[in-house]
């Protein structure tokens, strides 16, 4: 028995030692999505982040933004790259100590609502959707896009049977004609949907309707307080990667293989993406009345529940100070004011329904 006991003891101590070693390492843990092509994946693969930060950067892929929130709250993840606005606003409503520090991707075509050809519905006769089934992954950016689209087209959402489905399942249901329209994201699912249907809005129409989605870079407040330099460097490397990619797209295969897609699909997806520079982010998105500041309260109201009601003020969770760009005098104030007004009008129409 004796040697057995000793062995056990040793094993226990080793295990404890390993745990301590793991918790003592100062690595930076970043959450990201697969099938979501961004230029900083080149920097990720080429270890530019690790070099600039001087520390090991662990990239962990996640299936949903909600899981990213949970991981940030438990302290396993420091930075979430390209978390959707929907899970972020849900987290903020639930009092999670998180912050939006940058814009990862701006996309119009990353998500889409696709109507099947068989249904014969276009944006001109969209009210025919009333009484039919629509597949939507509830409480995601696609949910937001679905509702915004319906409000824009004057369709009564309460008369539509909304089926909660993941994009991959929604694509199957659309193909089989079970649903008249499917909303989703992810290039693989979307291209399957588009084989049997057409997006109800083109990219230009979506922009005109004010349906623009962006994924943000979010961090836990604690990480931002304790490692401001590291966060600044991270944002800097990301901006650099975006700028490099804008000049030279030869490394797209690196992105494709890292995102787990074919080069063609990656190209297609990235055509609908834009990656604003730090200056644009500071001035147009994260400024006091920028796009994020206007969208957050709007979405906050949309996703509010009894347990997590909307906040009166969301400005405290936006922090552009890590981008390293100085806000210029907003030359676009007028257009911003217009945006606010149009969004407010939409909020009102939503409320009256």
């Amino acid at each position, binding site marked *: 028995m004796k040697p057995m006991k000793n062995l056990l003891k040793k094993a226990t101590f080793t295990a404890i030692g390993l745990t301590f070693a793991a918790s*003592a390492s*100062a690595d930076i843990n970043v959450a990201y999505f697969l099938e979501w092509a961004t230029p900083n994946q080149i920097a990720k693969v080429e270890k530019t982040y690790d*070099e*600039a930060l*001087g*520390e090991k950067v662990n990239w962990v892929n996640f299936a*949903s933004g*909600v899981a990213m*929130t*949970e991981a940030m*709250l438990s302290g396993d993840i420091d930075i979430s790259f390209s978390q959707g606005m929907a*899970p972020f606003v*849900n*987290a903020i409503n*639930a*009092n*999670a*100590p*998180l*912050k939006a520090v940058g814009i990862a991707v701006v996309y119009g075509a990353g998500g889409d609502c696709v109507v099947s050809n068989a249904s014969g519905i276009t944006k001109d006769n969209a009210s025919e959707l009333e009484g039919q*089934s629509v*597949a939507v992954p*509830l*409480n*995601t950016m696609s949910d937001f896009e679905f509702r915004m689209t319906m409000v824009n087209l004057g369709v009564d959402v*309460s008369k539509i*049977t*909304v*089926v*909660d*489905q993941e994009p*991959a*399942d929604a694509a*199957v*249901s659309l193909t*089989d004609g*079970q*649903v008249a329209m499917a909303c989703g994201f992810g290039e693989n699912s979307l291209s399957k949907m588009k084989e049997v249907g057409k997006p109800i809005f083109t990219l230009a129409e979506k922009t005109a309707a004010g349906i623009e989605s962006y994924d943000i870079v979010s961090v836990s*407040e*604690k990480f931002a*307080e*304790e*490692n*401001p*330099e590291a966060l600044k460097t991270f944002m800097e490397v990301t901006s650099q990667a975006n700028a490099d990619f804008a000049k030279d797209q030869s490394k797209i295969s690196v992105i494709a293989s890292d995102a787990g897609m074919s080069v063609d699909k990656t190209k297609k997806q990235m055509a609908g993406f834009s990656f604003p520079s730090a200056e644009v982010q500071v001035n147009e998105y994260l400024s006091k009345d920028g796009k994020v500041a206007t969208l957050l309260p709007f979405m906050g109201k949309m*996703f509010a*529940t*009894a*347990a*997590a*009601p909307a*906040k009166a*003020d969301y400005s*405290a*969770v936006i922090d552009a100070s890590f981008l390293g760009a100085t806000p210029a005098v907003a030359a676009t104030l007028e257009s911003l004011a217009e945006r606010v007004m149009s969004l407010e009008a939409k909020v009102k129409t939503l409320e009256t329904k």
Partner: protein
Amino acid sequence: MLDFLFTYRGPIVGTLFLALIATIVWAVLYGRKLMRTEKSDAVFGNPERALGGWHWVITGVSFILLLWFYFSWDAARAFRPVAANEFCQVDKLSSAGNPIRSVLPLEKSFLKGTSLLVRENRQLSDLADDLERLGFSDTEKAEAKEIVSLMRLAIVGATSPQYLDASTQTRFVDIESRITALTAKLANEGYPGAPTAAQEEAAANIARWGDSGNEIPYAPATPLGYKFAAAAVEMKAISKDFIKIKNTNEHFLGQVDELKSQIAAFDTKAKAATGLDELLVENRADFFKGLTHVLRRVDDGNIFPPDALNGIQTALVALDGEQKSQQGGLKYFGALMMPGGEIRAGSNSCSEQGSGRWLPKPSDTLRTFVRISNPEIGYKGNPLLWYKMKPFGEMVDLVVPDFISSFVPGDFPRHDENGVVTPNLKSKVHDFVTGNFVSFKVPMPAGHVWDSLIRVVAGLFFGILLGVPLGLFMGLSRFSKGFFDPIIELYRPVPPLAWAPLILTIFGIQDDGKIFLLFMVAFAIMVVSARTGATGTNLSKIHAAHSLGASKGQILRKVILPNSLPEILTGIRIAIGVCWGTLVAAEMLAGTTGIGFVENVARKQSDYEIIWTTIIILGLLGLLFDLMMRWVIDKTIPWRGKG
């Protein structure tokens, strides 16, 4: 009435908590007394020893409830409702010091400067090693080495106290004295003075702990709270000034400037070199990039002489000590009554972290349950369980197949020039079979719970209906055993979720797909248990029946079926449990209603109260079914285990 309950939730929960403790103590004492007084002839191994013991049921239930009240901090909220608000102010102060604390070896093992120093030196060593492989000429190599050693010197320049700027020194001393002053203020009874009118108004308007979701009132409302909130504001200002302090001694800056120009000069020189291998050029570029990265990080000026921060550290430790003692009873209350987490202050809200967050309080869960049970609120437009007046026609539509109308000769009528549609026989039949006629209305149950119940019951029903005969058949016939065995054994171990995409394509998004998934689960279990029952029949009983002249059918009905009943009923019991377990997966396919749907949607919003409500509903429904089965087992096979 329920609002009344919620208003007085504190005393109610508190009384319940104490009552639960009393119950457990009583049950344990009662059990011990019973053991001493009760005479039992049953030897060890006799199942009779496990009979009775309802007091242990009470203990078990009380224990679970007690754990729930305790770890969800419901008990803490009942006994000290302001605790969360006070802890919120306390954490405001301690998180205000975070920027300073993270630099000092308080929570981490090393001083931040030390870790930075080690890191940069290691990277410099790596770069120096790389140097040999980059095809530099000897003079270039020497030059590069000089740069690396100069960089090391620059770091030393940052760490040696003799170069530390007097102004930086003063700023450190300033920070230190400000923290010390804050500590003194914190110890002062009168600090921060009477709350302002605005503060008092904010305090009067705050909600109670958890009035909406997991909200914790943010504004201070107690004397302790005012004190910590005021201190937090000051501490925040101190931290803000602290992180602005960079090591900017002349000596260090001079070295950095020199380094910058040297690296740049060396870089241009190295770039001018021609006729090099492409890979080598790339590696050289990497080398310079690495050098620049190290230089930029050193240039951040976050490395200070080893003892420069000692004063601040002592001051901060003193502040932490003072704030602990100022908390008084609160810290013991937190340690004792709020286990498994803490209350964290964010930039504009405070939140429970740890078990307080993911384990909603029983009283809140009950409130959520009552709220969504209200048929007018429900969840996502459907009630939990309610009735709906449905026209009789809908039932006709459900029962009578629609294709009957296509057998009626003739065409469907068209509208005429005046826009009038004259119905003919075909359209009348069509109207009837599709339930499109005026009919009386009957109340029908509806809602998430009902929908789930129907799915489970239907899956079970078909599973038993088809599974039991096939199982018996397989136990008795060589052909069917050999023929069906491979199919059933192949699909049985596959998890239901793996079937999901297939079922979605085959059955679509209606109920039949979900029911089929549940049927598959129940069917396999029923086949296996019926087969085991049939093969396990005592051969002598069959021989006896045979010699008494029983026919094949009689043997099956009178001997084999009763003898397999224990296995079949146990199989049903297992199938019920597994079906409820599979329900969430089934309703994930295409959710419109059902408990699994509610859970799937709530999961995406981290709405733990709803999640726990669904868990409890699922658990209770499972328990209800199991109790029913136990009753059935007791009634139909009382002889089990006695033969």
